[in-house]
């Protein structure tokens, strides 16, 4: 089994990864009120266990195609907070020079795009390329409960299974597609969608990073084994609105899901003195990222494509 070069196989590192995502997204949301960031964003707060657990077992040489809610995936993948912050501020020093912003980033083997469903056949094509080139890499594609409404997902599942492609579908079900509850959008079973194509599924309702990690280890190993695609379904909760102001959930519901906090759950495994250490290390990463990025220049426009 290959591990991430970040060696996220100890409890402190896993906690710290989740805390980086949490504090990064909190700072990001606060920067909208300062006017340093405009447009929109989709915070990963509440779902941190998914990214931290998955990227603690996935090789950093593997290929990732993420979606509109990509910051947590990127940071757990090993991406630099400063470059992401600069991208979100539209700075020339950003990951893609300010052209892509929150939803459209690329770094090493990490890609994201903001179109639901459309990224899935692309990820399948990438998996075909890795297979044909015998690189041993797998491709992870991140989808959500909302993506289950998109037709190109099923086209891709079918072909990926037919051609035994090394792809891991990661379905993060956070129970809402923007404002639409899953009960109004998804008929039948999520997992049966995949098993109908012969794709094995690892599924859990959990916000425990160690549980995610162990499931991801098995699912990724399956995708890497040459037998074809695998699927990891994680039922989770996002604490924030879909983007900024679009949250129809009741205070009671929000209070209930805030009790299922991956930081609290995994925090039980840390020693008391590790909390201030994590807090200060993370504060330095996040503050440095945003403070440094805010000083950077904006990009020039080149009118040629």
């Amino acid at each position, binding site marked *: 089994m290959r591990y991430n070069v970040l060696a996220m196989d100890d409890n402190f590192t896993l906690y710290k990864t989740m805390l980086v995502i949490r504090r990064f997204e909190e700072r990001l949301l606060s920067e909208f009120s300062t006017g340093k960031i405009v447009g929109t964003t989709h915070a990963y707060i509440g779902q941190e266990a998914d990214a931290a657990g998955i990227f603690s077992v996935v090789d950093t040489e593997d290929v990732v195609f993420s979606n509109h809610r990509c910051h947590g995936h990127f940071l757990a993948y090993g991406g630099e907070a400063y470059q992401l912050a600069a991208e979100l501020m539209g700075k020339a020093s950003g990951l893609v020079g300010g052209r892509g912003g929150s939803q459209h980033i690329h770094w090493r083997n990490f890609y994201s795009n903001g179109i639901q469903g459309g990224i899935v056949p692309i990820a399948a094509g990438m998996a075909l*390329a890795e297979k044909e080139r015998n690189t041993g890499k797998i491709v992870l594609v991140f989808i959500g409960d909302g993506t289950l409404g998109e037709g190109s997902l099923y086209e891709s599942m079918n072909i990926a299974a037919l051609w035994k492609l090394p792809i891991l579908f990661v379905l993060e079900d956070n129970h809402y597609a923007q404002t639409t509850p899953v009960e109004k959008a998804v008929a039948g079973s999520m997992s049966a969608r995949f098993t109908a194509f012969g794709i094995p599924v690892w599924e859990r309702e959990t916000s425990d990073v160690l549980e995610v990690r162990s499931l991801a280890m098995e699912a990724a190993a399956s995708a890497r084994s040459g037998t074809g695609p695998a699927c990891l379904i994680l039922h989770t909760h996002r604490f924030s609105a879909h983007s900024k102001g679009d949250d129809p959930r009741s205070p009671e519901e929000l209070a209930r899901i805030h009790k299922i906090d991956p930081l609290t759950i995994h925090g039980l495994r840390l020693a008391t003195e590790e909390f201030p250490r994590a807090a200060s290390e993370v504060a330095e990463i996040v503050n440095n990222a945003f403070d440094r990025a805010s000083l950077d220049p904006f990009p020039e426009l080149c009118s040629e494509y």
Partner: protein
Amino acid sequence: MTTVLDRLNFALHRSMESDERVYVLGEDILDPYGGAFKVTRGLSTKFPTRVLTTPISEAAIVGMASGMALRGLIPVAEIMFGDFVTLVADQLVNHASKFRWIYNNLVRVPLVVRTPMGGRRGYGPTHSQSLEKMFLGVPGLKVIAPNTLGDPADLLAAAISDEDPVLFIEHKLLYTRQLLEAGKADLRDYQVDQTFGDYPTFTMRPTKPAHLTLACYGYNFELARLAALDLIMEHEIFSEIILFSQLSPFNLDPLFQSLERTGKLVTVEEGTISLGWGAELAARSVEKMRGLMVRRVAALDLPVANAKSLEDKILPSVQDIVNAGLYIVE
């Protein structure tokens, strides 16, 4: 004699031979069938592992090709009928064409999507359209169309070598057409020049000063030549023909140079007339030249009917081009 189909097929064979990163994928492309229009004939026999027949999943075909291109392969996707490009619009517009730019030039997407367009074969409203106009002006996407004057093999080979996505439009009636030979038959009384580069624009100038300029691409070059001949024989009106291989983005310099000489433009296309290719050429030309006269020839704003009698009335004819020439000159 060699046909457009022969040359396209040859280009695919040659590209797959010379570069093992080239993959061909699409529906019903395996031998012995070899594709609905036989452009992929023989490929699966010669390169069985790199020719991939797919389910009927156009969005996935182009999406996968896009992913293959991002990760080191050179895919050529076939969409069986051009009418089905609506199913791949998201992949071309929101993915393939955008990646290079939104990722700040960190990636390339060397992808070709080939598809047959056009009517006149009685296939009816959903298998006869010329929908390329929907993809003109999409930043990051080249739209290319072969013809009988340039070598379609060179054009397709250039598209396969291109590091950016290309939508390659093949008019169905071109497949069986013979390539023209310089100085012979239709070309005997013309001087032919072409721009440099992979996707040349051709300028055909008659031996006498021309009265008007005919702009066209693809199969409609066949109609434009017949119309030009009729205008000479019946009316002693001479036409220059500007033949585009690259529809989008475009280089209009050869067109403008011709219009400096003639001052009159007739555009010819098979897509519907409103808001189309000819409209854009006309707009650019009148922005450039005061007092220019323009006439467009294109399909009526109707679906392409199944009945041949109706289809003939809906799609542009040689006589429509002649009439446009007469109107604009007289």
